[in-house]
């Protein structure tokens, strides 16, 4: 177990997630964000009160009993992430996603909880107890994360030297000298590498949601440049990103995650056989007439992201069902389930709609419709919503809570248009 010194708690006070420490079944520390979740203004209102007063049985039942927790001292107890409910002082019932970690607190066993409100359809993945295989996988991921952090530190230091000495050298070389241009190229390459690293970090860092007007085409172009080198050469990538798309109200980190998940699924499906990965992004207007035939997709202007693979991809059959929290799938299946859940949750959270066409054998086309910020309709004749798309059924997030896609299997799939 990890003994928690005072410093991280000072830091915890700054976090947007709720942080709670409990010993012997009672609350000992709650950071300001946690107090907000509990409906309290001061620590004194909740300190010493039983944990069961605030955490639902759906969470409590997944935690180790205190006696067992004490015996975990020397065994390196493992944390867990789960979904459940929390009750505020005012009796409010809040759906939460909670991570628990056994720690030592004032020399005794304790639980450290990190709590955040669950978002509909997104935080439905339940990991109450990790199997041994999952613990190994989780530990590997943490190690890779640490290694990556170390590598990035070293690369950043190297780039600091490259850029710094390059700029110092530039001052000494006359502008008409050929070497001046060469050093300029070195500096430009250093800056480009630096930007790439910043993009990786932006993607990797969990950040508080910052939703605002977003030009998806700019984000997509930048992020695809980053992803391109990770796609095997035997998969042909066709990108059709519009020069300009309408602004959407979105969180950039979530949009990157959406792109990454859709592309990862398509690539994974084709990584053995090869194929064509087709990515489109453009505005699409849906008329009232078309909206009626495309069940659940309201009329209006959308920014449409379409990812198509030529075999496998996101399983259209699986997309019909919301993820089963009690499922015990592991490995690749579990990854796909998490990706599917993430895609549906993000789209739902942004008031959008997912339409899936196709089958595992012939390929899958996933179309994501995010409402344009200032929604406007084009005249009927100008709509680019094709008949094949209008045949597809859809899933709509915000109205049903969890998006429930209906799939038109007969629709032709694979790279097209």
């Amino acid at each position, binding site marked *: 177990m990890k003994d928690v010194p005072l410093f991280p708690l*000072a*830091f915890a006070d*700054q976090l947007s997630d709720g942080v709670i420490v409990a010993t012997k079944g009672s609350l000992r520390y709650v950071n300001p964000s946690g107090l907000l979740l509990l409906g309290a203004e001061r620590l004194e209102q909740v300190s010493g009160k039983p944990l069961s007063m605030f955490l639902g049985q759906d969470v409590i039942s997944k935690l180790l009993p205190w006696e067992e927790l004490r015996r975990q001292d020397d065994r390196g107890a493992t944390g867990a992430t789960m979904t459940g409910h929390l009750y505020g002082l005012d009796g409010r019932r809040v759906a939460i996603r909670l991570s628990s970690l056994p720690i030592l607190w004032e020399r005794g066993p304790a639980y450290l909880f990190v709590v955040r409100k669950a978002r509909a359809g997104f935080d439905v993945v339940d990991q109450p107890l990790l199997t041994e295989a999952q613990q190994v996988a989780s530990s590997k991921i*943490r190690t890779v994360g*640490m290694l990556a952090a170390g590598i990035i530190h070293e690369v*950043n230091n190297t780039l600091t*030297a490259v*850029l710094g*000495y390059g700029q110092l050298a530039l001052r000494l070389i006359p502008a008409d000298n050929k070497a001046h241009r060469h050093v300029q190229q070195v500096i430009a390459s250093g800056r480009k590498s630096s930007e790439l690293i910043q993009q990786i970090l932006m993607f990797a860092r969990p950040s508080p949601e910052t939703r605002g007007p977003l030009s998806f085409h700019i984000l997509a172009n930048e992020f695809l440049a980053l992803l391109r080198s990770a796609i095997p050469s035997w998969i042909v990538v066709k990108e059709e990103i519009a020069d300009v798309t309408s602004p959407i109200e979105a969180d950039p980190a979530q949009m990157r995650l959406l792109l990454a998940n859709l592309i990862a699924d398509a690539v994974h499906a084709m990584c053995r056989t090869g194929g064509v990965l087709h990515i489109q992004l453009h505005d699409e207007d849906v008329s009232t007439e078309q909206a009626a035939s495309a069940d659940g997709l309201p009329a209006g202007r959308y920014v449409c992201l379409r990812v198509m693979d030529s075999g496998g991809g996101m399983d259209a059959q699986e997309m019909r069902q919301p993820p089963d929290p009690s499922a015990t799938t592991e490995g690749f299946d579990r990854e796909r389930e998490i990706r599917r859940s993430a895609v549906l949750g993000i789209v739902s959270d942004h008031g959008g709609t997912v339409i899936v066409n196709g089958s595992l054998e012939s390929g899958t086309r996933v179309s994501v419709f995010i409402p344009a910020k200032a929604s406007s309709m084009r005249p009927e004749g100008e709509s680019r919503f094709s008949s094949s798309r209008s045949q597809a059924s859809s899933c709509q997030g915000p109205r049903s809570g969890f998006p429930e896609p209906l799939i038109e299997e007969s629709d032709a799939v694979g790279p097209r248009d």
Partner: protein
Amino acid sequence: MPSVLVIDDDDQIRRMIREALEQAGYVVQEARGGEEGLKRYRASPTDVVLMDILMPDQDGLESILALRQEFPSARVIAMTGGSDMIGIMNFLDVAKMMGACRTIQKPFDLQTLLAAVAAETDA
């Protein structure tokens, strides 16, 4: 003439920063780590301290705390190329909480560095 203490365990970077600052007219001292930096500052306080965060002996966060405890008016610019990929802490945010008055993410352009140092020496 304004003075700067550069604390960084990376010899290449420390020397590069020294050269850039000296060319800009600063008097520069160097230290390879937090403890050595604190000793040098005690012996000869400078207008600004440029502090790396991830160092082997005493890291920059501890060093900022120690320096600010002993010299509350010390002006520290924290810099790092390090990043916590799993997002538990952003070193530069923590450095600010520890009392750094300004932060710089590595890699940086020399103009960025010089502008930050100038802003602190003018403050």
